[in-house]
């Protein structure tokens, strides 16, 4: 996040060339863009200089891409929903490998099941909850709820990634997500939970906006035939996500 600054017409004109060349700080770039977007002055010279910068790449001799790049790009695009179009479903591995010589990047929802031993995971959860109880004395009710969930669990699965480490606890037809010390969210962001089946279909399973301390969320649906649980960061609840997950875990052994 960059600090918001405001600049005057003279500064915009002074920095226009540097701005066009991407040679100002982000805060200055944002301020110049905002100024040009709303200023009644024409700033013709500044706009020309900014436009002139877009021709700099034309001074380079074109470099022919490798033969594989186009195929790789088209395969990725075929599997990438556009932001304004809700995808019908996540791609299957067969759809991604659309052309020979293409080495598709592995989509996060195509993680295969990871081995998971319930006893070891439950122990890990208990250890985690012990630390939780020590650090969060004021949240005994939540801790107790979490402990009850663990005590009645039919299965528990580790979920981890850059946002931290947590567990999906399955108890009968219900499932909960719990974690301690999840990474803080920026303003306007939320965590969204996903269940993914073996064909790569994603289903939203809930959200979490408050990461102050513990996370203890009852998922909106049972795990059923889901094989993967994932967490993404979004700016609002969405029905399909194109963001990389910040936590992933396999469900089932």
């Amino acid at each position: 996040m960059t600090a918001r600054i405001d600049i005057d017409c003279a500064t915009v004109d002074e920095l226009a060339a540097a701005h066009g060349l991407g040679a100002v700080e982000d805060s200055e770039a944002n301020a110049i863009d905002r100024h040009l977007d709303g200023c009644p002055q024409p700033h013709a010279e500044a706009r020309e200089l900014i436009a002139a910068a877009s021709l700099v790449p034309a001074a380079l001799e074109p470099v022919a891409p490798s033969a594989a790049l186009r195929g790789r790009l088209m395969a990725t695009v075929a599997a990438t929903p556009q932001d304004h179009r809700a995808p019908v479903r996540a791609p299957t591995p067969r759809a991604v490998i659309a052309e020979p010589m293409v080495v598709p990047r592995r989509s996060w929802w195509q993680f295969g099941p990871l081995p998971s031993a319930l006893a070891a995971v439950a122990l890990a959860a208990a250890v985690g909850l012990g630390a939780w109880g020590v650090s969060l004395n004021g949240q005994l009710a939540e801790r107790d709820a979490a402990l009850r969930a663990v005590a009645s669990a039919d299965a528990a699965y580790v979920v981890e990634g850059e946002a931290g480490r947590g567990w999906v606890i399955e108890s009968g037809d219900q499932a909960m997500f719990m974690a301690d010390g999840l990474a803080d969210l920026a303003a306007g962001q939320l965590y969204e939970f996903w269940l993914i089946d073996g064909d790569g279909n994603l289903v939203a399973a809930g959200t979490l906006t408050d990461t102050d301390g513990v996370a203890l969320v009852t998922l909106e649906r049972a795990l059923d035939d889901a094989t993967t649980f994932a967490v993404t960061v979004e700016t609002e609840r969405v029905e399909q996500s194109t963001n990389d997950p910040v936590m992933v875990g396999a469900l089932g052994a």
Partner: protein
Amino acid sequence: MNEVRRADAQLADRMRTGDTEALGELYDRYAGMAVATAHRVVGGREEAEDVVHDAFVAVWRKIDRFDSERGSLRAWLMTVVRNRAIDRVRARRTSVDLDDADERSLLRTGPNPTWEAALTRASAGDVRSAMAALPDEQRRALELAYFEGYTYREVADLTGVPAGTANGRLRLALGKLRDALSGTTAAPLPFQETPLRKDLSR
């Protein structure tokens, strides 16, 4: 709207409807310039292609935010390529929010009627000649900024001059580039479609 922008706008309209072949055509037009730019910035061929791949995917994802009446698709694409390449070389310093940067770039690629006319007339050779004609210190400042991702203040430090001088060199360099190209009468910048297709084994 000139011919190049009109053709790009048509591609953008098709991409907006989910037409992946339109993205392929955009790639055929600009991949050579995109790879050249990324390669110039990051140095490695494989990494440059990763940058170009990611830039085209970003344009595909965000195409609905592009307004052909307000901006140039080519300029936006090349800015996305450049931003992503610079982000790689800046990784040891600071990282930018690329999603945010992609969308902010839309504001910087707005049309300018005077410049649009110049761009239509300019050839790639004209651009190279104009760059070559710049005084060394101005060309160096421009290259440090555009291709190496330094701010004008960092350019000043690297070249041992005050920040105002570095900024002034960038202004002079771009101003001369603009003036040189606005007076050209050569053939328009080619799409590169024909020569590039020869190099693609599809």
